[in-house]
């Protein structure tokens, strides 16, 4: 039996995955990262537990609801790999308990998503990129590893409506990165790879060349500008760009605006969790901010970032959904989790479930439960379920919401 599935491994959300269930279990068209999620979906699964002892699912939900109801300051964190429907419930829980809410985007690409949502920078969809874009710029991103099918499905390689000859003649690739990585290996002879010492200097170079002055990277930048004049360009910004800018996002946004004066240049953030943008959009709709929000104070501040909350010991309880902060945050930060009540909802055993007071196992989005997710360009994609598991994030969060 062949089942059409959507891979929720990264923000590409490839919806052409075919899963063969009968006989040998096969996953077709998914990249290594995505195929691993389907093939190993039964491995390392979490079990419901309270204070390290195995319990039933209902008991764990009951205990979690009690802890949340008793808590004075709750922090809700994660939610980047669960569906939109479940995210909305999590936001409701945070609203009901006047809690802090944050996700990985506060140290990932949240700033770029926010700028796109507020309309500060011109953005477009990946389908438009495939059909029309001529210059493809990867700035501080390594899609071969972060989202393997990004280049072959949307940007550089495919043939589109107005780009019939695909990568052979109708695309121009630019890779900007601090080292030669797998993505830069694809750059052909007449295309450009820049290894900048600082992103600010490179932005200055762009501005200066547009004004007709000499600049540090004049050779490469002049070549790129010449190509940009020939057709639409799109910049895929990754974490390298986010940290390379050192907080000075205005400088980059101004560059994008300036480039748009003489050609169409769009920006799409690239390389993050499957539904990070979905969370940003849901919270933005509700509150006007994309992350680091406090429902108690009705505002968003830098101090409300999850890692800063932990180090300053403000929350007494955390609800972590589909994330592994013990693995992803520095030890100095994550060690504070052991001092407070930690409730984790996750399909798999992680470092965080090991130290949690209450563990509630859920289903894997895209494999065991359907729903909606938001792709990196803001397009909503439907997920199918390949296997049955009715205890998904929506079920668990609804039960918790009822009881608090």
């Amino acid at each position, binding site marked *: 039996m062949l089942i059409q599935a959507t891979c929720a491994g990264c923000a590409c959300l490839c919806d*052409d*995955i*075919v899963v063969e269930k009968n006989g040998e279990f*096969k*996953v*077709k*068209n*998914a*990249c*290594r*990262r*995505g*195929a*691993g999620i389907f*093939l190993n979906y039964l491995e390392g699964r979490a079990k419901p537990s309270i204070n390290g002892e195995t319990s039933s699912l209902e008991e764990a939900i009951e205990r979690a609801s009690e802890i949340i109801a008793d808590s004075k300051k709750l922090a809700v964190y994660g939610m980047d790999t669960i569906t939109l429907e479940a995210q909305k419930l999590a936001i409701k829980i945070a609203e009901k308990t006047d809690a802090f809410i944050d996700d990985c985007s506060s140290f990932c690409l949240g700033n770029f998503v926010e700028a796109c949502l507020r309309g500060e920078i011109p953005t477009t969809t990946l389908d438009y990129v*495939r059909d029309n874009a001529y210059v493809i710029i990867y700035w501080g991103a390594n899609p*071969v*590893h972060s989202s*393997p*099918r990004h*280049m*072959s*499905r*949307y940007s550089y*390689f*495919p*043939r*589109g409506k107005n780009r019939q000859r*695909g*990568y052979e003649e109708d695309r121009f690739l630019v890779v900007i990165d601090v080292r030669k990585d*797998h*993505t830069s*290996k*694809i750059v052909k002879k007449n295309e450009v790879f820049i290894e900048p010492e600082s992103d600010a200097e490179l932005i200055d170079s762009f501005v200066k060349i547009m004004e007709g002055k000499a600049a540090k990277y004049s050779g490469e930048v002049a070549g790129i500008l010449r190509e940009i004049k020939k057709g639409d360009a799109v910049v895929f910004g990754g974490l390298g760009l986010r940290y390379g800018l050192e907080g000075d996002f205005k400088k980059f946004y101004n560059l994008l605006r300036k480039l748009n004066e003489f050609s169409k240049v769009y920006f799409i953030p690239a390389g993050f969790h499957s539904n990070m943008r979905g969370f940003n959009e849901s919270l933005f709709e509700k509150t006007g901010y994309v992350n680091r929000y406090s429902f108690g104070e009705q505002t968003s501040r830098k101090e409300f970032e999850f890692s800063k909350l932990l180090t300053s010991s403000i929350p007494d309880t955390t609800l972590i959904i589909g994330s592994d902060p013990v693995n992803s945050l520095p030890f100095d930060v994550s060690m504070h989790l052991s001092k407070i009540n930690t409730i984790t909802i996750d399909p798999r055993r992680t470092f965080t479930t090991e130290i949690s007071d209450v563990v509630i196992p859920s289903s894997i989005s895209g494999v065991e439960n359907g729903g909606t997710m938001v792709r990196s360009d803001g397009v909503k994609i439907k997920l199918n379920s390949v296997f049955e598991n009715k205890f998904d994030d929506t079920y668990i969060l609804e039960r918790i919401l009822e009881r608090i």
Partner: protein
Amino acid sequence: MPTPMEIFKLLPKTNCKICGEQTCMSFAFKVITRERKLEDCKPLFDEEKYKKQLEELINLLEPLEKATETGLIVEEDLCTGCANCVVVCPVHASEDPYGMGSGKGPTIENPILLIENGVVKVINMLLCRRYGKERILCVACRENCPTDAIRFLEE
């Protein structure tokens, strides 16, 4: 990958012409391109004194067995399943322009390459431009592989 010179050094080097080639060197070249088999060199198998050389040759030619008829070798350990090779393939683009040519999954029955369980698999070599008598030495898939997971015999 063995070079023709490495093969030649281990052959009898007598230019006996039993295999049908004029020299042992040209035989070595044709072993690499798989137009001739090692078994065609009769003295190598019959005479006792070449026994050690024969063993070394068999070891040396082991990777050739893994390659397909067009000389394509996929290192599955290196492959990330990015599908660049599937999309760039000129045959895929002409046979399946709205499927693989546009970056999506295949809509035709037997594509040349397919991503299965996260790594690229060779499904149907007959369609490849490198197959048959009037072949072209196309290297589109190898050129665009970011992790060097695809190689060809002649390189």
